[in-house]
């Protein structure tokens, strides 16, 4: 990270506020320091506390200046129309995730004919942001349709926070309270389960018999390799966000089970960042969801995941559509010039549609 020139601190102190100068080491430029200072002040104004406002602003600025992510400092992050609570120990929702979740919701709402029921499974749910936002969008586009969402995470902190987020957004009237929308139609559950545990798939099959077919499997798994974690993550991420949510575990415990079940694949060399995708495809092969969306760390990883798809069992070969979504998948979708922006690439003998603008962000499979 290049050193910030002292003149920048001087200017921040003179033009904005001495507190903006304190934020500079974390924000790196004047504009975002000014914005973050304003947001901190707005947050202090909007929340009540016996502590005087000036002191609270100072405390928050001091925390943020030490490099703690703003979302942990303020405790929230806007996600779509929702407000997601953030706590240390659980990954902060990213704007890219927001973009593809909204695009996914709009895809589901365009289904013809409208489905009689929807069942969605989110693996590695974290704050629960993806199922919550999907629920909000689907309630608007499919009023009356029974929707069942299930979020799974290994971390008990994450599960607690996801439940707290559900309650928080109900109290903010972003989501309807469970009683008013007749509990039989919408169901949102979070459970603490290990994705690599061999009992997961039987458990899922057992817990969701009444829903029948799964409509969507979505996941934002850890996808950063240990080397990348050291070299290419931002300092705030490395120092303050949970490693558990970012870096897949080395293929030990979980990996061995994987080898037992999927001998054919694991004999090949696997990138240390791709461990979760092998397992996700395995789950997809058993549960046979209509659509699968997996967030990936970049173009190379997206290509590797599609190659994995080729090599895996016959269950996942039924997906006729394979797409790579970029950071802003809707960028081409909403425009009439979309046909121009929509590229096509060939990966491992399969034609893959690429949507949107930015870096490769997600792999989308569909059999609809």
């Amino acid at each position, binding site marked *: 990270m290049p050193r910030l020139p002292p003149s920048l601190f001087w*200017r921040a102190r*003179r*033009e*904005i506020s001495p507190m903006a100068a304190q934020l500079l080491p974390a*924000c790196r430029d*004047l*504009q*975002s320091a000014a*914005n*973050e200072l304003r*947001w901190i002040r707005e947050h202090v104004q909007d929340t009540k506390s016996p502590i005087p406002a000036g002191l609270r602003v100072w405390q928050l600025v001091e925390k943020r200046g030490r490099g703690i*992510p*703003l*979302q942990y400092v303020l405790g929230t*992050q*806007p996600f*779509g*129309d929702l407000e997601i609570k953030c706590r240390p120990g659980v*990954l*902060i929702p*990213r*704007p*890219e995730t*927001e973009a593809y979740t909204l695009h996914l919701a709009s895809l589901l709402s365009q289904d013809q004919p409208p489905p009689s029921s929807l069942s969605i499974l989110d693996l590695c749910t974290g704050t629960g942001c993806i199922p919550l936002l999907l629920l909000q969008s689907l309630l608007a586009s499919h009023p009356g349709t029974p929707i069942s969402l299930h979020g799974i995470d290994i971390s008990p902190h994450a599960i607690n926070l996801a439940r707290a987020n559900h309650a928080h957004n109900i109290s903010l009237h972003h989501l309807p309270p469970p009683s008013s929308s007749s509990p039989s139609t919408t169901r949102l559950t979070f459970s603490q389960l290990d994705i690599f545990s061999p009992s997961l798939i039987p458990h899922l099959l057992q817990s969701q018999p009444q829903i029948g077919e799964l409509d969507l499997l979505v996941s*934002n798994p*850890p*996808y*950063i390799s240990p080397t*990348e974690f050291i070299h*290419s*993550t*931002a300092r*705030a*991420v490395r120092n303050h*966000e949970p490693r558990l*949510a*970012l870096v897949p575990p080395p293929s030990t415990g979980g990996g061995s089970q994987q080898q037992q079940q999927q001998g054919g694949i694991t004999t090949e060399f696997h990138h240390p960042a791709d461990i979760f995708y092998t397992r996700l495809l395995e789950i997809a092969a058993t549960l046979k969801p209509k659509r699968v969306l997996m*967030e990936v*760390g*970049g173009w190379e990883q997206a290509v590797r995941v599609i190659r994995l798809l080729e090599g895996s069992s016959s269950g996942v070969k039924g997906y006729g559509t394979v797409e790579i979504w970029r*950071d*802003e998948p809707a*960028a081409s979708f*909403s*425009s*009439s*010039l979309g046909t121009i922006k929509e590229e096509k690439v060939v990966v491992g003998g399969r034609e893959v549609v690429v949507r949107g603008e*930015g*870096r490769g*962000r997600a792999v989308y499979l569909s059999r609809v």
Partner: protein
Amino acid sequence: MLAAPWVCRSCARSLRRVGISQLIRRASTEAPARLPPALLERARKLTAEHDQLSTALENDFDAKKAKRAGEISRVADALKQFENAKAAVGELQGLLESDDAEMRELARDDLEATNTQLADSSHSLSVALTPKHPFADMPCLLEIRPGPGGTEGRFFADTLFHMYQTYCANKGYRTRVVQYEASDSDGQTGSEGEIALQEAVLEVQEAGAYALFRGEAGMHRVQRVPATEKSGRTHTSAVAVWVLPSFPENGTSESEADWENPESDFYLDPAEVRCETMRARGAGGQHVNKTESAIRLTHIPTGTTVSMQDSRSQQRNRETAWRLMRSRIAQQRREAREETSRQLRSSVLANSQITRGDKIRTYQYQQDRCTDHRSGLDAHNLPDVLRGGETLGRIMDSVQTWLVNKDIQALIADEEAAAAVSSKKEGKK
């Protein structure tokens, strides 16, 4: 003793002449008391339509018809009043020629009052006839930007911003600061603690605010000795104020505000708008944790750009940016349309259009004066104006009257032109 000092004969004569010439009023800024026949014809037509509609409405109710009837009932009422006044004047004129001296005296007394009544009613008739501005019922956005030049203009932009804000607060209008951006150049403040403003957008959320504030659009000129000036010279700078109709957040059924409708001024083809987000450096996704939520929209055909970074939520920034973009484009379209219709009309109205280029008002600090160049009103309590007090209200009212008069003039010109065209056609036949 003489009341006045001695004045020589030739001077006295010239003074007397000046006195006489000053008493004669050569030009009139009032609207014509006599209505042109074309306008009267139109009013009669509309009244006939109104009568027809109201009889139809008595039989069965139709929302569309009722709306139309409501729109033109103003004209019908005004015409009735006008005809009553006219009949009264005619009657009095008849009485004036009567033999009874006492009767003539009474008639003469009444005639004066009735004549003013006639003038009033003809004015209100022409006001009723002027089509309502299509955006008149909408809330508005006041966009304030300093003109080219130094920080002095920026300071004054901030003054204007606070002037409108406090004016709205005094009047009880709900406002919202959409954007308030200080300039990056330096951290000094003006004499009254103003900051150097780069751009500010204030939304007045009152329905009908557009009609109230549309007279404020244009260049506001300031003449004062800046706080930074050392040798005491007066500087002149300018601040541009744009008044845009604000697109209501929840879509109403009004056709103008319906942005989904391609006919509407607010319609934007999403394919023509490029949306950019400020990307984080590095790989993105889980690798970084950015808080930048800025959105920039570019309308490709016109090159209009809007950038928004006020909210932490990118989603909300995007919505605000789209609203602002819609308002700007709608205003541009309307201006373009007005420009073409203005060129079609005669040059009588050349100065009446309010666009961005015209200097409309001067704030003179040394003389404690605020002058509106269109209505010609001089107000002499500048601090009260800048505090958004009653004096500002007085100036804005004078501009309103001026605008209405201009609209009437435009309408008369239009009607006469139309009448001339139709009579020419008939002549050819």
